[in-house]
């Protein structure tokens, strides 16, 4: 059972701790496949996706066959970095606005060709998230330590360390515009503390142990512009 189905069970008979009837819990959910990232919550101050957060595990049954500790309780809270709409539902429109700003999509050819194929990613950075993703993850996982400046773009987000936004399978991307949005006014360089990314991200979300992972990803995006033609069709 995961947190989503748990919320569903609660809706079947919504009562508060004293047993009095109350309203079901409000939450957003969509795909339930750990893709859309819509249904997220914070459990013990750690952000996670509710559709893949297993109740057994949260109750201590980590190994196969282990019995969950039913005396334990699970605390759910809305993500702390967004305005709360109600209960667990938060307003994440800031993410979408920022994704629009950095053109977080892969353009494909329409009735005309939309440009050259972008160079293939360097294998070195295969597992490293891009600057953009670092920020998104950071923000969604709610692990942001107190910072002096948290500008709009640092809060821009995509929700999982998947294939890089910089190079989709089509390897075509508006890199220049993206870089400008990330590095221009209000961009990530206005964050004065790169360690935030390292501290805030879930383990393994980025490849490089260096604190400047963000800058590594940034420079990989600019480097790929000048990479040799040989790497073009990897």
């Amino acid at each position, binding site marked *: 059972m995961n947190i989503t189905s748990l919320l*569903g069970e609660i809706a079947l*008979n919504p009562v508060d701790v004293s047993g009095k*009837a109350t*309203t*079901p819990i409000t939450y957003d959910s969509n795909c339930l496949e750990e893709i859309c990232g819509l249904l997220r919550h914070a459990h013990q101050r750690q952000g996670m996706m509710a559709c893949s957060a297993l109740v057994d595990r949260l109750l201590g049954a980590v190994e196969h066959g282990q019995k969950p500790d039913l005396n334990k309780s699970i605390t759910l809270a809305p993500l702390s970095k967004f305005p709360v709409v*109600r*209960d667990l539902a938060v307003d994440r429109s800031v993410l979408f606005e920022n994704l629009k700003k950095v053109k977080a999509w892969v353009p494909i050819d329409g009735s005309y060709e939309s440009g050259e194929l972008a160079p293939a990613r360097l294998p070195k950075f295969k597992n490293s998230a891009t600057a953009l993703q670092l920020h998104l993850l950071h923000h969604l996982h709610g692990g942001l330590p107190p910072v002096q400046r948290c500008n709009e773009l640092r809060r821009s987000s995509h929700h999982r360390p998947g294939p890089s936004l910089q190079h989709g399978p089509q390897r075509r991307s508006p890199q220049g515009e993206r870089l400008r949005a990330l590095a221009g006014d209000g961009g990530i360089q206005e964050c004065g503390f790169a360690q935030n990314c390292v501290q805030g991200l879930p383990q393994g979300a980025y490849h490089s142990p260096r604190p400047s992972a963000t800058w590594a990803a940034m420079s990989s995006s600019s480097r790929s512009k000048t990479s040799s033609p040989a790497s073009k069709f990897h």
Partner: protein
Amino acid sequence: MPSPCPAQEGDGGHAAELARQNGLNKLLLNNPGTENPFKIWRELGDTMTKHATIVRYNAGLDEADAKLVELLDRYKNVNLSDKSQWANTSFAFTRQLYNMLELARVIVQGARLRDESRGAHYKPDFPNRNDEQFLKTTMASYVDGAPSISYEEVDISHIKPRPRVYSST
């Protein structure tokens, strides 16, 4: 040449539909019933999973349709445990639940009338595809509060239907 899309008279039925929807919403928020919409939904899911997935039996489909009629009846007695006007997801859910129930009847009745096995849908009582009778698209319209099933011919002028065979020979 007359326009293919003539202008609607008046407001095109906008005011009437708005009044109808508002009426439905008000009814839903004030209904003094006893049924939990999430329970009805759970029963709907169980029924459809049991009777209207890959393997289908006519007796089971009849049973499912009877159950759906019962659920639609119970839906009238629905009571939202949340009657607030702000971010009320139970309300949106209960509105959709009605459509789910009606659509489930379309699925069940459409399946009931096809005495054949086609594609991923398998009726053990009728294991073969029956192109003569059922090479047709099922259409449903809403007549007197229930689905009414009709059929539309499939255009096979370009590709002649042939048996679907997966053996290598």
